[in-house]
């Protein structure tokens, strides 16, 4: 309990913790009685006249009038007995200010899961970079651009229980967080051994064409073994396209003239850009979209052999540029001067056997791609026109697609889109 011989800053209201002494109403030596007003204290609400509950004589005023905020209990003056001789007792030291509260512990950031390790890269295939994620839903889901894998809490728990690496799990719907069902599915399909990466076998000291043949053979065999192909076919009318081409070529300089094949490739490139489900790779049980449309162009080589080097970002090349690129890559392919990236970067391949005179080609997909578009020769066909029959130039387009990555209706949309673009040649520029 407070020393009654010290007059302290009183409590002056429920929410008052400190006050300012703005006036003394007494001086040392004044006699005071219980209930006398001795000071005026300023609080947030008002200036209050403060009474003393003691009888005696004011000894010493410990605190001068001023603007300093004084806490409740601060000694303000001493009070001595009436008639006490001598100076007032030494004032007790001011109440120590309470120690500042300990700083709140900074919350530890939640443990981030270790970034998912990248799948081991097959040496011959450059690591695919992730396509930009789909537009995020309004709810926060961790962006695919961070290392954090989006998965529901239950999915994480299941993954931990089953020993499944979340980074290798594909959500049933791309762009959605991984669900427990996805984890369960991944756990079940994990039984099959992972596909071996297609890497060029060390060439045995046989002649090169044989080696190439063997490599192609292994690749094609693997493709047929692992990729569940489905095939779609569409006849595409080219009247408008060829008319446009003719008109363009008539006005263009020789080195800017375009072959019909360029239209076909450009149409495929644009469609691949619009339908990324067919433009990319099947890796470790899930689809990885290509970083761009790098059109693989199947080129037969003299002396047998086949390569399908990539024309990078074919969808962004103008038709003239694409024509130039096709010429360039074809001549370099035949000259054996292809670059490594051209060999590994194709995201979808086109094989055009029109020159060979066949009507259609159902090709074999180049793993790890998920689609191959084939074109046969452009020829005049009997065509159904205006309630009657006419003759029109047309080409048969085919799609060989990996059924793991897409279903028929997506493939069908793809071919339909290619056909539509070929019907609007102006847009292929």
């Amino acid at each position, binding site marked *: 309990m407070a020393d009654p011989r010290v007059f302290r800053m009183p409590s002056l209201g429920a929410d008052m913790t400190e006050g300012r002494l703005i006036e003394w109403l007494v001086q040392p030596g004044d006699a005071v009685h219980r209930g006398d007003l001795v000071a005026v204290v300023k609080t947030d609400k008002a200036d209050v006249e403060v009474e003393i509950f003691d009888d005696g004589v004011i000894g010493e005023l410990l605190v001068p009038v001023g603007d300093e905020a004084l806490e409740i209990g601060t000694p303000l003056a001493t009070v001595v007995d009436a008639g006490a001789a001598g100076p007032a007792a030494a004032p007790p030291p001011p109440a120590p200010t309470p120690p500042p509260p300990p700083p709140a512990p900074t919350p530890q950031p939640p443990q981030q899961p270790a970034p998912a390790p990248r799948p081991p890269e097959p040496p011959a295939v450059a690591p695919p970079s992730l396509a930009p994620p789909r537009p995020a839903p309004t*709810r926060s889901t961790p962006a695919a651009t961070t290392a954090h894998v989006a998965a529901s809490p239950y999915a994480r*728990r299941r993954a931990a229980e089953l020993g499944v690496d979340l980074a290798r799990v594909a959500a049933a719907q791309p762009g959605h967080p991984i669900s*427990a069902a996805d984890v369960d599915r991944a756990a079940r399909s994990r039984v099959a051994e992972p596909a071996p990466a297609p890497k060029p076998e060390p060439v045995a000291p046989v002649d090169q064409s044989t080696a190439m043949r063997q490599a192609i053979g292994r690749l094609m065999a693997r493709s047929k073994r692992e990729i569940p192909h489905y095939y779609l076919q569409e006849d595409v009318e080219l009247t408008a396209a060829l008319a446009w081409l003719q008109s363009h070529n008539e006005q263009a300089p020789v080195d800017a003239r375009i072959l019909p094949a360029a239209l076909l490739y450009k149409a495929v490139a644009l469609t691949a850009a619009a339908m990324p489900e067919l433009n990319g790779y099947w890796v470790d049980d899930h689809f990885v979209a290509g970083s761009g449309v790098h059109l693989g162009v199947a080129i037969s080589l003299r002396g047998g052999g086949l390569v399908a080097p990539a024309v990078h970002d074919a969808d962004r090349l103008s038709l003239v540029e694409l024509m130039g690129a096709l010429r360039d890559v074809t001549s370099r392919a035949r000259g054996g001067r292809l670059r490594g990236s051209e060999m590994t970067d194709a995201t979808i391949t086109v094989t055009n056997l029109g020159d060979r005179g066949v009507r259609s080609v159902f090709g074999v997909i180049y793993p790890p791609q998920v689609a191959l578009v084939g074109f046969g020769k452009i020829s005049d066909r009997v065509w159904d026109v205006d309630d009657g029959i006419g003759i029109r130039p047309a080409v048969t387009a085919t799609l060989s697609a990996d059924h793991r990555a897409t279903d028929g209706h997506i493939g069908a949309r793809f071919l339909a889109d290619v056909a539509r673009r070929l019907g609007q040649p102006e847009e292929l520029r």
Partner: protein
Amino acid sequence: MTEITYREACRQALRDALIREPRAFLMGEDVGRYGGCFAVSMGLLDEFGPDRIRDTPLSESAFVGAGIGAAIGGMRPIVEIMTVNFSLLALDQILNNAASFLHMSGGQCNVPLVIRMTTGGGRQVAAQHSHSLEGWYAHIPGLRILTPATIDDARGMLWPALLDPDPVLIFEHASLYNTSGELEETAGPFDISRAIVRRRGNDVTLIAYGGTLRVALEAAATLASEGIESDVIDLRSLRPLDDETYIDSIRRTHRAVIVDEGWRSGSISAEIAARIAEHAFYDLDAPVERVCSAEVPMPFAKHLEDAALPTPAAVVAAAERAMGRG
């Protein structure tokens, strides 16, 4: 087993209480000569007389407070506030007195009071007559909040509420009075603190109470035709909440949809969602979905009102989202 209306079940419950408990009496606006705004107390005045079926003036604060005082003074009053919309006039008595007397007195003065209120919208009675404030009241410690959604509960909840030494608020959704169903005559104590699973399924948990139980059940039927099987939980009590029942369900289904006729923000669905996050976070395969009333005072035009209230279609869509199909 008899077929009766929800209204009739409420009336039977009142009659039963008045017969078994001589200290019980019903007090409220138009409960006597009018027979009750929703006809719940029709006929009771003739049977029990004006002392025990007491018509009050339009003085919610006074007659709710009188219920509190009468309860403290040894009676067992059942106060009827015509609708939750008018209860706001008595909010001070309910919160500062009924819910607080026991505590302020250090345990000396308990308040064995029952307050019945009609609640909910959907009848084009517009902004001031369509509130669902059960969730608001469930915020207050010291009150028990009951939401009978079925005939059985309408019949069975009043007596245990009357026996409770502390204040109990019973909310009857207006849309239920005319519904009918079979009444099971159960012997033995009636538990008013547990939620009940009204339908079983393993894919998603639908949590509802009062007027939204029917919405959830209808949605569950639709979902079943899509191959999605639902647990439908009738909370029955909003305070205390029976966490165990819905958490157990979510541990099995991993997905939850809460159907609440209150306005979404700060509603009881928000409280339940928080508790699910607290207790079942690692069981969730999808974010908790909530289907609540739109944040707008209830409009009058029917199509707008329909759009503002939780519907089975909205619950179906929410469940589909939770299933990853939305």
